[in-house]
């Protein structure tokens, strides 16, 4: 079975600090995609970053970057220079076809 595990239910950091959210997954597939989505209190699920498993280079989107370790099946999200607007639930998700398999989420709180 394909699973996604986020081991940090909640994290809290000061504004401007760097924070890393962990995600591990389990699959027998060789080609797949990994995603980080952000869900603020508005409930809108927003794509933060995506990584294609066949690409060795880690994806980067402005202050957001990933550390993708395919052999270890690890896909962590690093947020640099954190901002108050980054406060949200963060979900790691995996898919190899059209179904997204989701982790339980990490609640990230950015303190002023």
């Amino acid at each position, binding site marked *: 079975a394909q699973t996604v595990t986020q081991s940090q239910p909640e994290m809290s950091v000061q504004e401007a600090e760097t924070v890393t959210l962990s995600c591990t997954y389990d699959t027998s597939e060789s080609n797949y995609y990994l995603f980080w*989505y952000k869900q603020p209190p*508005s*409930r*809108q699920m927003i794509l933060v970053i995506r990584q*294609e498993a066949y690409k060795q280079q880690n994806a980067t989107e402005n202050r957001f970057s990933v550390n993708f370790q395919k052999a270890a099946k690890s896909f962590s999200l690093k947020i640099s220079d954190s901002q108050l607007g980054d406060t949200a639930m963060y979900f790691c998700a995996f898919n190899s*076809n*059209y179904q997204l398999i*989701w982790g339980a*989420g990490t609640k990230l709180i950015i303190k002023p």
Partner: protein
Amino acid sequence: GAGVSQSPSNKVTEKGKDVELRCDPISGHTALYWYRQSLGQGLEFLIYFQGNSAPDKSGLPSDRFSAERTGGSVSTLTIQRTQQEDSAVYLCASSPKTGLTLVETQYFGPGTRLLVL
């Protein structure tokens, strides 16, 4: 351009009643997904529509749940004889079918929060 929209935003109903939840995908997106998010949980896949193909209903939790997608656009998720355990946020997503990648990014609506009393 307009994103995915869902209505109603919130719905309170009594146990045993039927409810209909609506999703308007992004114009031109051929794929549409329904997910359920229980409190403090990740998303649970319910159903997937792709163009005119038969939908993948493998995630529907019981025969009380059904969904339609008319004209390849708007979708309605219907829950019959609602139970308290149906209380959750129901999220809809859509994605294009560009054929450029194996997996397309899914774009989500704001969800419908359903409370069954």
